[in-house]
C-alpha cells in the first residue's frame, strides 16, 4: 500500500479526512483554533469536491442541534468546535448521545475563559467527558487523521450507535505542519462504507418518534442501556482498529504503551505532550533508566481493566493533565487511573500534575523533572512533597 505523504497541519488533516468521508451534512460554526478545518471543508463544498449539505449556523448550540436533527433524519453528520463553542453545545451533547445519533465531531482542544485564552488546555473535552459521547484523543496530525476515519465506523457500528468526539491539541497540533500519511480516497470510502441509519425520520413508511419523554418509569432503563452500550464499545473499537491497520499499516489500541512493559516508573499523559515524553524516555533509556509512558487514546469508554494491567507492575506513576478539576484535588485522568488501580494488592505510588495550561509549553526538562521525582519515589518507596501539584508555575 503506497500511502500518499503530505505536509499538513492538524486542521488540514482533519479537513482532508472530512473530504474523503464526504458526510451528508456538516453544520459548524467557526471558533479558534478549529476554524481552519471547517473553513477548508467549506471550500471543498463550494468547489464541489464533496456532496455535503453545509449548514452555516449562527452558533454552536445550533450546529449541534442541526447535527442531531440531520442524524435522526438518517444522514451521516459531522461538526467541529473548540473551547467556548464546545461549552455552548453542552446542552445538546447529552441529547446527541441519549438519542444515539452517531455524530462525529472534531475538537481542537482550547482553554476556557477567563482569562480569555485561545491556546491549548483540555478544559473543553475533559469537562464534557461524561456527556455520553465516545472520546478519542490524538497525539499529532497523523493520529487525528486516522482517528477521524475510524470514528465514523465506531460511531455507526450497530452495537455502538453513539456520537464520537476526536480531540487534538489546539494550535500545538491544529496549526503545526507535520508529515502525514494519507490514504487514497477510494480506500477511505471503502473502509467507512455507506451509512445505513436505523429508524431514520425520513423513512415515512416507518413512522418513528425521536426525542420522546422518559419519565421515572423508563428513564433509568434508558440510561442503563446507554451505559452498557458505551462500555461494550471497547471490543468494537479494537476490531475497527485492526481493520484500519490492514488498510493503513498503522495500528491503534485503546491506549499507547511506550516502553512500559519493563518500566519501573511511568507517566500517563494524553495528546501532544506524550510526544515530548517519548523523546525524554528515549534519552533516559539510553542512560539505563527503566522509564515508560501510557498515553490514553480512548478516554470514553475508559479502558479501566486494560490500564490497570498495564500499570500494576510500576513502582511509581505520574499522571499529568492539561486541565484542572477545580476543588477535586486531582485531575480528571488521575481520578480515572486511581479508580482503575483501586483494589490491587499493591498499588503503584502516584503523583499528579497540572501542566501546560492555556498553551504553556511543556519542555523536555519539565518531563525530565517529573521522572527525576519518580526515581526518588521509586527508590525510597514513599512520596515526599505534594501528591497533586502544578508543574512549571510561579507559586
Amino acid at each position, binding site marked *: 500500500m503506497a500511502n500518499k505523504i503530505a505536509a499538513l497541519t492538524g486542521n488540514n488533516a482533519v479537513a482532508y479526512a472530512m473530504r474523503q468521508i464526504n458526510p451528508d451534512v456538516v453544520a459548524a460554526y467557526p471558533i479558534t483554533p478549529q476554524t481552519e478545518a471547517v473553513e477548508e471543508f467549506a471550500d471543498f463544498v463550494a468547489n464541489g469536491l464533496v456532496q455535503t449539505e453545509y449548514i452555516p449556523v449562527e452558533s454552536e448550540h445550533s450546529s449541534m442541534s442541526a447535527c442531531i436533527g440531520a442524524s435522526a433524519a438518517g444522514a451521516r453528520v459531522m461538526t467541529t468546535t473548540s473551547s467556548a463553542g464546545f461549552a455552548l453545545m453542552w446542552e445538546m451533547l447529552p441529547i446527541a448521545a*441519549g438519542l444515539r*445519533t452517531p455524530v462525529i465531531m472534531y475538537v481542537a482542544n482550547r482553554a476556557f475563559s477567563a482569562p480569555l485564552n485561545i491556546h491549548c488546555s483540555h478544559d473543553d473535552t475533559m469537562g464534557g467527558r461524561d456527556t455520553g459521547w465516545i472520546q478519542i484523543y490524538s497525539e499529532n496530525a497523523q493520529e487525528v487523521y486516522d482517528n477521524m476515519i475510524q470514528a465514523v465506523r465506531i460511531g455507526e457500528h450497530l452495537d455502538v*450507535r453513539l456520537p464520537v468526539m476526536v480531540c487534538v491539541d489546539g494550535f500545538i497540533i491544529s496549526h503545526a505542519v507535520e508529515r502525514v500519511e494519507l490514504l487514497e480516497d477510494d480506500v477511505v470510502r471503502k473502509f467507512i462504507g455507506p451509512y445505513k441509519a436505523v429508524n431514520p425520520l425520513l423513512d415515512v413508511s416507518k413512522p*418513528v418518534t*425521536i426525542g*420522546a419523554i*422518559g419519565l421515572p418509569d423508563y428513564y*433509568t432503563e434508558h440510561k442503563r442501556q446507554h451505559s452498557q452500550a458505551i462500555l461494550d464499545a471497547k471490543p468494537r473499537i479494537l476490531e475497527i482498529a485492526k481493520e484500519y491497520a490492514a488498510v493503513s499499516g498503522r495500528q491503534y489500541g485503546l491506549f499507547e504503551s511506550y516502553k512500559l512493559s519493563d518500566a519501573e516508573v511511568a507517566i500517563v499523559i494524553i495528546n501532544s505532550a506524550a510526544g515530548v515524553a517519548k523523546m525524554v524516555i528515549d534519552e533516559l533509556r539510553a542512560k539505563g533508566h527503566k522509564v515508560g509512558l501510557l498515553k490514553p487514546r480512548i478516554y470514553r469508554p475508559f479502558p479501566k481493566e486494560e490500564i490497570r494491567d498495564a500499570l500494576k507492575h510500576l513502582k511509581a506513576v505520574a499522571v499529568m493533565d492539561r486541565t484542572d478539576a477545580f476543588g477535586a484535588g486531582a485531575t480528571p485522568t488521575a481520578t480515572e487511573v486511581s479508580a482503575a488501580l483501586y483494589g490491587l494488592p499493591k498499588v503503584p505510588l502516584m503523583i499528579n500534575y497540572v501542566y501546560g495550561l492555556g498553551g504553556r509549553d511543556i519542555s523536555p526538562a519539565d518531563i525530565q523533572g517529573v521522572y527525576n521525582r519518580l526515581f526518588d519515589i521509586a527508590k525510597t518507596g514513599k512520596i515526599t512533597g505534594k501528591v497533586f501539584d502544578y508543574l512549571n508555575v510561579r507559586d
Partner: protein
Amino acid sequence: MESPQAVPEHRSASRSEGHLCGAKLKNAKEMPIGSAITTPGSAAEYKTGSWRNYRPIHDKAKCTNCLFCWLYCPEGCVKVKDGKFVEFDYDYCKGCGICAEECPVKEKAIKMVEEGK
C-alpha cells in the same frame, strides 16, 4: 443486570418492579435504542387516567344530553352514542373537572369526587 442485594418486598421501589397501571414495562435490553418510539399510536398504551385525583361522576337523571362535556373535554374522554352521553373513559380522564365546570344544568349532572372516597 442484577441488583446488588435483595431488598425486602415491601421496601422495593414500585417503579423498578416493571409494572405500572398493570402494564409490563420493558427492561433496558428490550427497549428500542435511543428512546425511539417505533410503534405509531403507542401513546394509547399509557393510561394517563392514573394521574387523576378527582373523578367525574355522571348523573343520568339530571343529564339533558346537551353534550357540552363532550365538546369541552380536552382529552376526548366523554363517550357518546346516538347523541347521548354513554360514559367517561377513565383510562385517560385526568380529572381536570372542565366537564363538571361547563355542565349547564343548574343542579349539575357531573360532580367531581375525590379518588379513593
